[in-house]
C-alpha cells in the first residue's frame, strides 16, 4: 500500500503524464488567464442548431467529445508529437528498434479523416434519436465582452 502511494505521489509530482491507476486530481488548479477567444463546435442538424440545454450533460458530452477528439487528432497530425517523444524515449534507453516494431500500432488508419463525417452523422443520429438528413458542424470562435458573446470567426467543418 505504501509503495502504491509513493508511486502515486511521484506521478502526481511529474504531472505531465499518468499511468492508470496513477492519475492526477489537479483539474481546474491552473491559474486561468483571461481567454482571448472561446472555441465552440456548433452542430446543426436538419437546419436546427443543437443547444446544450436540450440534452443531458452526458449526452451533450457525447455530442461534443468526438468532435473535440477528432479535431485534436487532426491538428496534432495523429499525435505526432507524442509519438516522437516515445521514439526518442525508447532510443534513450537503448530500445530504439522497439519503436519501429510498435510504430504501426500507434497510428490511426489514414482513412479516418475521410470516414469521420459519415461516422459522426450515424452516431449522432443514434444519439439524438432522429434521422439526420442534413448535418453541419462549424468551428466558431467567440469573445466575451462582459455583455455579449461576439462571434469572431466561424469555419465550416462538416457539411453533409
Amino acid at each position, binding site marked *: *500500500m505504501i509503495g502504491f*502511494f509513493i508511486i*502515486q505521489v511521484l506521478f502526481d509530482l511529474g504531472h*505531465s*503524464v*499518468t*499511468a*492508470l*491507476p496513477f*492519475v*492526477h*486530481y*489537479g*483539474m481546474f*488548479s*491552473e*491559474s*486561468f*488567464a*483571461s*481567454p482571448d477567444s*472561446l*472555441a*465552440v463546435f456548433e452542430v446543426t442538424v436538419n437546419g436546427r*442548431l443543437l*443547444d*446544450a*440545454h*436540450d440534452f*443531458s*450533460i*452526458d*449526452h451533450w*458530452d*457525447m455530442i*461534443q*467529445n*468526438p468532435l*473535440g*477528439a477528432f479535431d485534436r*487528432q487532426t491538428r496534432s497530425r495523429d*499525435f505526432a508529437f*507524442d*509519438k516522437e517523444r516515445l521514439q526518442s524515449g525508447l532510443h534513450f534507453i537503448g530500445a530504439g528498434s522497439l519503436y519501429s516494431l510498435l510504430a*504501426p*500500432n*500507434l497510428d*490511426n*488508419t489514414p482513412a*479516418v479523416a475521410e*470516414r*469521420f463525417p459519415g*461516422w459522426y452523422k450515424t*452516431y449522432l443520429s*443514434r*444519439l439524438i434519436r432522429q434521422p439526420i438528413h442534413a448535418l453541419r458542424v462549424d468551428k466558431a470562435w*467567440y469573445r*466575451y465582452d*462582459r455583455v455579449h*458573446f461576439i462571434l469572431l470567426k466561424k469555419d465550416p467543418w462538416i457539411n453533409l
Partner: protein
Amino acid sequence: MSYTRDKKITLIVYFLFYYALFASFYLDDRLLSQYQPIFFTHNRDLTELILIATGLPRWMMAHPWTFTAADTLAFGLPAALLAYALRKGRFSPVLGIAFGLFLSGYLLLADLFWQVHHEPFVLYLLLALAWMTNREERFYQVLKGCRYYFLYIFTSAALWKIARGAVFNGQEMSRILLFHHSDLLSGPCDSFARRTYRYLVDHPGLSYGLYLGGAALEGCFVVGFFTRRWDRVLIGLTVVFVVADLLLMRIPYWTILLGTITLWLGSGPVLSGSSLPFRRPLPPREKKIIIYETTHHENLPALLDLSEAHFSEVAVFLKELSYHNLSGYGSPERRWPRTDFFVQPEDCSNRRFISQLFAFLKRHRYSHLHLSTLDNNLLVFVFRLTGAGTVHLSLTVHEVNEYFTFSFRSLRDWSESIAKFFLHRQIRHYTLFLPAMVDRFRQKLPEATAVFIPSRFYPGQHPSGPAQSPFIIVIPGSVEPNRRNYNEVIQTLTLFLSRNNPPVELVILGDSRTEAGAAIIASLQALECGRLRLRHFKGYIPETVYEQELAGAHLIWSPLNLHKIGSRNNPETYGLTTASGLTADLLLNDIPALVPEGFVIPEPFRAAVLPYGSPETALEIIERLIRDPAGYQAIRGNIRQAFAWFSKENFMDAFMELTNSDPPRNQP
C-alpha cells in the same frame, strides 16, 4: 460477523454503482458497441500507450464484433463473480483477477475511444482488489487503502489548487466558468442556468468565493489521514461536493460516491460532541480491550485485573518471554481466565506482530487499545494508530522525561521525536506507576488524562514466610552500576561484618552477566565468610524463581541511584519521573525495603520503606531488624495493613478515567 457483514455491504454497494455506471453508459450511447469507434486518441497515459502499442485498439476497430464482446463481458463477468460469491459464500480469486484486469482494460479503451476521464473510476479498480481474496485481513487492507486513496483524491486536488496558485487568482472561477461553459453560454437559449452562469462569470468575487469554498472543502479531507472520527462528516462533504460540481460545473461526478463506502465501514459512531443534523447513533460497540506489552510484564497484572472486571473481552499481545513470566504462580490463563493471550514468537518481527495486532483490532472491532509499553517502533505505531479509527487509546508512560524529550542526534531520534509529536496528540489517556509521576506528567501535558495505577494489587496472602535464620537480604534488579549504588552495599556489609552480628545471606536477584555486573559480584564475593553467604544469578531469572526469592527475604534492599540516565539517555529521577521495579516487588509480599533517602514514594508504600542516608544508617536499620524480631513483625503487620489499600476496588475510578468508561454495572 462484522467481516461477513462488511464484505456483503461492500459487494452490494460496489456492484450497484458498477451496474449503474454501465447502465448510464448504455443510456448515453457510450458503450463501445454503441459507439463503434473508428479512431483512437493518445492521452499521455503510459498504460494506455502500452495498450495502443499492443495493437489491440486497431485490431478491435478492424473487428467491430469485439466491442460487443467487451460490452457483454462488462455486464456478464461481474454477474458471474457475484453469482459465485453469493452461491459459495466466498470469492473466486480467478474471477476477481479477471474482473479487475478486464475493468482496467475497458476503462483504458473507453478513454482511448471516447475520452472517459479515469479520475472517478480508479477507486472501482482498487476496490476490485477486494474480490481477489478471501482473507479477512487483506479485505480490510484493501478497504483501508481505498479509504486513504479516497482522501488523497480530495486532498491532492486542494493541494494542487494551492501549489499552482489558482486559489490566489481572484478571477479564477469566473474564467473557469466562462471557458468550461462556453458552448452553453454562447448558445441561443436564455435559461435560468445560463443566466446563473453569466451572473457568476460577471461577478468574479462571488464565483471566487465559491472556488475557495470548494478548495477548502477538498482540503478538509486531510483530517481523515489522522483520524476516522470525522469520516461521517466527510461523507456529507462528498455529497455536497458532488451536488455542487453538478450544479456549478455540470460535471456528473456521482460515480465517485462509491468511495464513501470506505468512510462508512468501520468509522464507528460520531462523537457525542458533534452537532450535525444528520448524526445517527450507532448501536454501542462492545467494550473490548487489547493490551500491548513488550518486556515489562511485571506491570501487567493490575491492568489485567481491572480489564477483566470492566471489559467483555480482553486480549493481550505480548512477547514470549513476558508471557512465560507474567505470573509467578500458575499460568496466565488460569490467573486471568477471561483474557486471550497472543504471544509473539521469537521468529516474528516486532513490526509484523504490531501489524497483526492492528488487523485483529480492526477485524474484531475492539473499542480500546492500551499500550502498556511503547519503547520501540514509535513511528510504526503512529501510522497504525492513525488508521485505527475511533478506538480509545491509552498508554503507560515509564519515563516521563523521555516521553517529552525531542532529540535529533540520530535517525532513530528523528523518527521517535516525530512520532512523539503525533503521539502527544493521538493519545489523551495515560497511566503512570506513581502519583508523583502523574503530577509531573500533568505539568507537561495538562489537557491529557493521567492516572496512577500500580503495577499489581496486593494479594494479602503470601505463599510462604521467610525462614527464621539466617537473615536474608535480597537486592532485586539487574546488576547495573547506573541504576544502583553497590558501593554503599559493600561498605555497609563491611561494617556489618566488622561487628558482632549474626550470619546473613545476601541474594543478588538480577542478571549479573555483564562486565560491570561481574565486577560487582567479585567485590561482594570478596566479603564472603562464615557470617555472609552470597547468592547471585546469571541470565534472565524466571518469574517463579524471582517471586520465590522475594518471598523468602527478610529485607529487600534497593540501593537506587536516584538520578539515572533513561533508556534514551535522558536524565530521570526515580520516584518523580520514573518508577523503580521496587514498587512492583513490594506489592508481592509484606517485606520491608531499605531505600536511599530522597526516594519519593507515596503514603501507602511508606509503611514498607526504611530510608537510609549512609552505610552507617543502613547498618543500624539492618541490625535493629535482626535483633528485634517483635519490632520486625510489627513492621510487617503495618505493611499488610497499609498495602490492603492496593486493591482492585480502590483503582476502579482511575481505570474508568483511563478508559473513559462508565462504572461497571455491579458497582455501586
